[in-house]
């Protein structure tokens, strides 16, 4: 589905995205505090990140290198010298009442991201989204408003957790090149994949390590840009698509009713599926940007950039192309890339697994199980060698698909300590392929079900399924289904 169905003929949607990426450095942007997510409030804080008088920031070298790496991955131009600026505004979770950010000299400019969407004809269309800039800044603390609404207004009192304050952030600002919700979603997914591939962040929206705001407007095709609104609280790729779609239609309805769109920030309400006014930007906030006198220029001479460029990994588009070249379906290749499963895939193939089988297991059962347990692939302990062994056990008939799933679950449950073969042996999962044993069970089942046997003999072939089921039950699922079928047919038809 594309935009034709979204707006009336002659109207066009215009979207630009601002994405914040929390870097996964060990320490914060300006101090040595830990960046670990989920610790007790205000335990990862010091005089610097709580803005104590006299404390000074020192830029995190690793964060700058990560920013350059992501900038290169997005085909951007790295500024040889750039500055940090102060963005001044009062807010309780901003410890210094200014945010150290970048203003007229961002670290990266002129990047791009090419995304793939499904076209009207069902084929793949590639669209280029320009990236205006990528700059470094710091995250704020988190306010917790105690009281009825859970929001600032109407709260009895507020608590602030500064653990997040000062965590390095990259803001990636796209040009308003996006014309439909699907491209917006594809852009966010692709950016997530690039971030994961470079290793600078795990880009988990649910933990807020990647956050997206959308600038949305509508216009008559060919006319000047319309007034935009900024949509916040987009907690998933799905929310982004829904919110953009809703907002485009809302704006067009307002305009067609003779109203005007106001420049405002709107909050996406996921449960009700609507955007609501958060605050009206009556006048543009004057942030009084000026160069931060506490920090020196960041110098990125070509030599340094080249050295960082050598760390650039294979980027998602190239990885997907390589995988489809190996026969992996496009959707599965995308799933592997999005879940950072390609290294395990490559390892499995190197260890002898068939590419399609390895991809199928990874994109299906593995990803599903990890999602259910909220586990990362790295934390699961599953290796490519495990996967290769699993496919081999299926191929040689030791495990059925059903048993293989159980073996896989066992490997993950052991966090990789047990191999699939070890799990199968431990739990007695090997298929019963001892013909003598199986023959005895088949004979018993045939003898115990004369009516069914008669029906099969009279041509109701499907009824054999019931007998297979009984054999399976008697063997606790460990009978080789193919063999069972074969023995049953011989026993019934002679």
């Amino acid at each position: 589905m594309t935009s034709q169905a979204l707006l009336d003929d002659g109207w066009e949607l215009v979207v630009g995205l601002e994405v914040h990426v929390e870097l996964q450095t060990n320490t914060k942007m300006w101090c040595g505090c830990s960046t670990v997510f989920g610790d007790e409030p205000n335990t990862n804080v010091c005089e610097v990140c709580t803005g104590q008088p006299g404390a000074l920031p020192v830029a995190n070298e690793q964060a700058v290198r990560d920013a350059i790496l992501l900038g290169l991955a997005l085909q951007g131009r790295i500024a040889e010298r750039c500055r940090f600026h102060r963005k001044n505004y009062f807010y309780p979770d901003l410890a210094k009442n200014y945010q150290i950010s970048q203003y007229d000299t961002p670290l990266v400019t002129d990047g791009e991201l090419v995304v793939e969407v499904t076209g009207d004809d069902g084929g793949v269309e590639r669209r280029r989204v320009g990236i205006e800039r990528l700059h470094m800044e710091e995250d704020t603390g988190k306010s917790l408003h105690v009281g009825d609404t859970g929001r600032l207004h109407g709260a009895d009192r507020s608590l602030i957790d500064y653990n997040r304050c000062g965590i390095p952030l990259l803001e990636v600002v796209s040009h308003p090149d996006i014309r439909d919700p699907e491209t917006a979603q594809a852009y966010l997914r692709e950016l997530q994949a690039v971030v994961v591939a470079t290793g600078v962040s795990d880009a988990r929206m649910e933990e807020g390590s990647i956050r997206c705001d959308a600038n949305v407007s509508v216009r008559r095709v060919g006319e000047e840009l319309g007034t935009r609104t900024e949509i916040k609280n987009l907690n998933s790729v799905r929310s982004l698509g829904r919110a953009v779609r809703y907002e485009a239609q809302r704006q067009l309805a307002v305009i067609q009713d003779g109203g005007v769109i106001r420049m405002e920030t709107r909050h996406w309400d996921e449960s009700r599926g609507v955007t609501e006014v958060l605050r009206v930007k009556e006048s543009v906030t004057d942030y009084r940007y000026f160069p931060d006198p506490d920090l020196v220029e960041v110098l990125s001479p070509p030599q340094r950039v080249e050295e960082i460029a050598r760390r650039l990994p294979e980027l998602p588009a190239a990885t997907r192309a390589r995988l489809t070249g190996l026969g992996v379906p496009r959707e599965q290749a995308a799933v592997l890339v999005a879940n950072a499963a390609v290294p395990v895939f490559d390892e499995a193939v190197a260890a002898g697994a068939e590419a399609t089988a390895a991809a199928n297991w990874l994109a299906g059962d593995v990803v599903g199980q990890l999602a259910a347990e909220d586990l990362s692939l790295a934390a699961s302990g599953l290796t490519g060698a495990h996967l290769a062994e699993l496919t081999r056990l299926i191929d040689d008939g030791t495990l059925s698909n059903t048993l293989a799933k159980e073996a896989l679950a066992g490997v993950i449950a052991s966090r990789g300590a047990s191999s699939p073969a070890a799990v199968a042996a431990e739990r007695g999962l090997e298929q019963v392929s001892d013909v003598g044993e199986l023959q005895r069970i088949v004979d018993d089942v045939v003898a115990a079900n004369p009516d069914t046997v008669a029906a099969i003999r009279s041509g109701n072939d499907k009824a054999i399924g019931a007998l297979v089921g009984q054999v399976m039950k008697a063997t606790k699922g460990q009978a080789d289904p193919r063999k069972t079928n074969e023995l049953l047919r011989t026993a019934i038809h002679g």
Partner: protein
Amino acid sequence: MSDLTNRTAAELADDLASGEVTSREVVDAYLARIAAVDGVDADGDVWPAKPAAALRSDEPHAYLAVTAAAARAHADDVDARRAAGAPLGPLAGVPVAVKDILTTRGVATTCGSRMLEGWLPPYDATVTRQLAAADLVVLGKTNMDEFAMGSSTESSAFGPTRNPWDLDRVPGGSSGGSAAAVAARLAPLAIGTDTGGSIRQPAAFTGLVGAKPTYGTVSRYGLVAFASSLDQAGPFARTVEDAARLHTVIAGHDPRDSTSVDAPLPDLTARLEDGVDGMRLGVIRELAGDGVDAGVGAVLREALERLAGLGAEIVDVSLPHAGYALPAYYLIAPSEASSNLARFDGVRYGNRVDAASAEEMNAATREAGFGAEVKRRIMIGTHALSSGYYDAYYLQASKVRTLIAADFRTAFDDVDALISPTAPSVAFRLGENVDDPLAMYLNDVATVPASLAGIPAISVPAGVADDGAGGRLPVGVQVMAPLLGDDVMYRVARALEAATAFDPTPRGARAVAVGEVTR
């Protein structure tokens, strides 16, 4: 025993090393004088200054708090280690006073403001740590203009400090408490901070040596920021040698301050006595004429004659953009201050005035916590950074700053050091300039050029001048040197000091009485 509180730090260091006195004896002598003279409640572990209304007109009010128990304990510890033969730094056991703008872990740091009353910093400033590591014994925290904004120490929320030479006059500012402490023999050494002249002008007003090091050579970590690109801590002392020795303790690279210079620093004392024979010294035309009081001008001329007599070549030098330094300074410093002081919002530390919402609480806290001068500068700075005005004010001032730095570089191509008066007048009367901010700002006219350029500058007492009321007050001469030329600055200052033979003892009808008090 001769009077301990009249000895220089160098003398004390020798006497401590030889075992003639103990650090505890020196500290006790100073504490006794502070208790008798300064207007503190000398009771308990930390002696607070008396409330402003309870202070007498003959009390200098140099200290906001005296850390008596900690000072005695530290002195005992140094004495014990010395007795045990442990290696100690050259100034170990010598007392020092610290401006109340440098953080001291667990010891109140107010910046002279109600805003920070009761705040106990969770960490030590790098300078505080350096003093402790060198075993200088901190006597207490000294009074200052609120957040270092002022030239008289009258904007302190805790009452003004008085000039030990004339208790009806100001000691200068913003480091007036540190200056008064050293001048009134309430400490042999003190640390101040200088943004636009806040060490040099009080040194000039109180007959002391006060130096602003090259920007970036003393760590700003833990120095509560007024104007980050200008702030620099430095020494007050009664002699050039003492100043150079204290300066040596606090200089050095600090990885916690990004603007800290990571380069070898010159030895400040090695060539102190080498003299100025053969040096070329420039007199800055723009700072030596109009607006300088006759008495100050006369002292400057005498000083130049003495330097010439020592073999220096005195030349006339122009800093074409010097006239723009003061307006540029009074845009850049308030701009940075407006942002630096935003963190005082009642949320995390210091005073809070409760209100219905966070915004109202912020506003009420800042309304109650800041004094008039701080509010004035926050408003000037906020305006100068506002969109639509930024280019005309902040940006233009930054360009002027670049031009002034270039002026200095050109001048130093020709001369080894530059000379000017430190302040246009001798110390003025308490209250004289309080209602006239511009007159107050004009005090900084000769000191801000070096601040904007980041170069080292020192004020050396060069004589006395008529105070207009029958008394005589000290006059300081400023010596400026190229970036990282702090050693040259001290060498010229020492030559002038030796040729001047200035007696730093306050004297006059309204001078504070000096001399060890009987206990």
